[in-house]
């Protein structure tokens, strides 16, 4: 999730291009995107069908603790003797749900506020933008700690924190796209003709702002997943006994001397998600705007996600 005070508008082009070419073909037709898509497919298979493949439930104390892979536990067991495959499956599921929910909230709320600010302009605009400056002044993990102080740790805290961190970028993007749109002749004509502001916003502005927002949403997901993993590693997200990759990695840290297996399995699972999702995101932004690929990448990650 990137907070980018300096980032300019990616423009409205990418969204249009995406609509024309078909996102799926764009992703699969290039090695980067294809590898990413395969990775995501593997992740989805594990997340959806893992519990069926595993012979034990995620909460079941099913065998000896800290064993390696075996015929009964394909990925071994954790410190309490629970089956790692089924715990990883549920953990992946949680990661994806939290990251997706948070990113969508960030896009909807941030996008709406950004559109309003850009459309109304003037004092409202300055006020809303100043608010994002305040949000951006909180380092992401610190913001999560602050929110945890109020709500206690848990899944919704993580969702809220990740959404809050992502919102400013969506708002800035939506704002600049809206401002561009707002000054176009036909929108001005609508305004002069007395069309309702809400009507114009929904009918003329939203369709043109939606494209870039959706694209940015897709490229934001890996950052959300990474931040979610960091929060669950720190114990600020889902609480035991609910499995989460970060928490598993944290627990396994204490058993490194006994076995590294318990540590490596969730780390690899996490790498698999973040790297594949990021490859897809990279492919999309490169394909839709090749001329600015390096620069944009550098700027967008300007104050990007931690964890």
């Amino acid at each position, binding site marked *: 999730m990137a*907070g980018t*005070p*300096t980032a300019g508008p990616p423009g409205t082009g990418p969204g249009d291009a995406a609509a024309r070419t078909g996102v799926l073909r764009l992703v699969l037709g290039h090695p980067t995107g294809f590898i990413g898509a395969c990775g995501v497919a593997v992740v989805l298979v594990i997340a959806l069908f893992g519990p069926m493949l595993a012979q034990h439930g995620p909460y079941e104390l099913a065998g000896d603790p800290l064993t390696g892979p075996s015929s009964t536990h394909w990925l071994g067991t954790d410190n309490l003797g629970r089956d790692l495959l089924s715990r990883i499956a549920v953990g992946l599921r949680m990661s994806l749900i939290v990251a997706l929910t948070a990113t969508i909230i960030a896009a909807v709320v941030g996008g709406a506020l950004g559109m309003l600010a850009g459309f109304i302009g003037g004092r409202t605009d300055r006020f809303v933008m*100043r*608010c994002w*400056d*305040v949000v*951006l*002044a*909180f*380092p*992401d*993990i*610190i913001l999560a*700690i*602050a929110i*945890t*102080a*109020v709500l206690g*740790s848990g899944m919704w805290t993580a969702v809220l924190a990740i959404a809050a961190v992502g919102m400013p970028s969506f708002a800035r993007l939506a704002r600049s796209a809206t401002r561009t749109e707002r000054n176009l002749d036909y929108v001005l004509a609508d305004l002069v003709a007395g069309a309702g502001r809400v009507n114009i916003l929904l009918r003329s502005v939203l369709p043109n702002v939606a494209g870039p927002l959706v694209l940015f949403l897709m490229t934001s997901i*890996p950052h959300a997943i*990474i931040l979610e*993993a*960091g929060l669950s*590693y*720190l*114990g*600020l997200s889902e609480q035991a006994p609910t499995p989460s990759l*970060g928490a598993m*990695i*944290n627990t396994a*840290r204490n058993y*490194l*001397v006994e076995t*590294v297996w318990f*540590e*490596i399995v969730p*780390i690899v699972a*996490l*790498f698999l998600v*973040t*790297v594949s999702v*990021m*490859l897809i995101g*990279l492919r999309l932004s490169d394909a839709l705007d090749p001329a600015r690929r*390096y*620069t944009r*990448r*550098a*700027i967008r*990650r*300007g*104050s*990007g996600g*931690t*964890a």
Partner: protein
Amino acid sequence: MGAYVRRRFAGLVIVVFVASVIVFSLVRVLPGDPAVTILGQDATEEQLEAVRTSLGLDEPITTQYWLWISRAATGDFGYSYATGYPVVELIANRVPATLHLVVAGLLLATVLGVSSGIIAALNRGKLVDKVINAMNMATLGVPSFSLGLVLLMVFGLSLNWLPMSGYVSLWDDPVDAITHLILPAGTLGILIMPQLSWLVRDGMLANLEQDHVRTATSMGLPRSVIVRSNLLRNAFSPVLTLLGLTTGKLLAGAVIMESVFSWPGLGSLALRSVLSDDYPTVQAVVLLAVVTVVVVNLLTDLLHAKLDPRVMKGD
């Protein structure tokens, strides 16, 4: 310069004010009674009342904020609910460790990022450029704590070259301090590096297209002079801005590194405090982090303005 500085400073004051209100209200909107948190469930009503009065909880909310912020400005953040020590003491004890980590991480990131960026730019399109780009991309896709743990398993656990955790001050034992710093600061540095590397590379290449580079070439200046004074120098200002923007990321990364490498800094203090409902300490650390971020941002922007005479004109 004066007007620019004044405007930026006003912006800083507003942001810090709003952030402090947010940080203050964090504790005010909390369910439950701080007095109960401090004294426990068995306290009598008189005891609770006494604590409430001493905390100023019976005052109007604005007065409470004013009391809190004016004390905070003098470094008085009250007493830790968990330990009973003054918060400022807890913080003061932790600052050196975090500073070690953050400064070393930033230094490593700058050295690695800038040098890899220069190498990539000078070899544009060649294999080196592609390898550096791929490494940067890979780094971005990897969560820092798992990267830290992998490095820890390799260099600490298997090879046994470096200590796996703990902090030693540079002033006490420089060599030992550095061996302890390598893994956490290295991970932090690798985390920040890719953006720097890209920015330096792209900045240099973008400048290559500029007319002033053509002028310098037409004047027969040596390539080394052009690289230094036309390309690098002009790529430097955005790097500076990025370093300012990176502060937040650096602090957040420090929280995680401190947890991975059992580093006794502010991040682990904040984490422990929030998990033990020690609100005054959480407030103090959060506010400190926010102030650090905005102040560093302001400083880098001012430095940027000083180095690049166009900033204030265009702004």
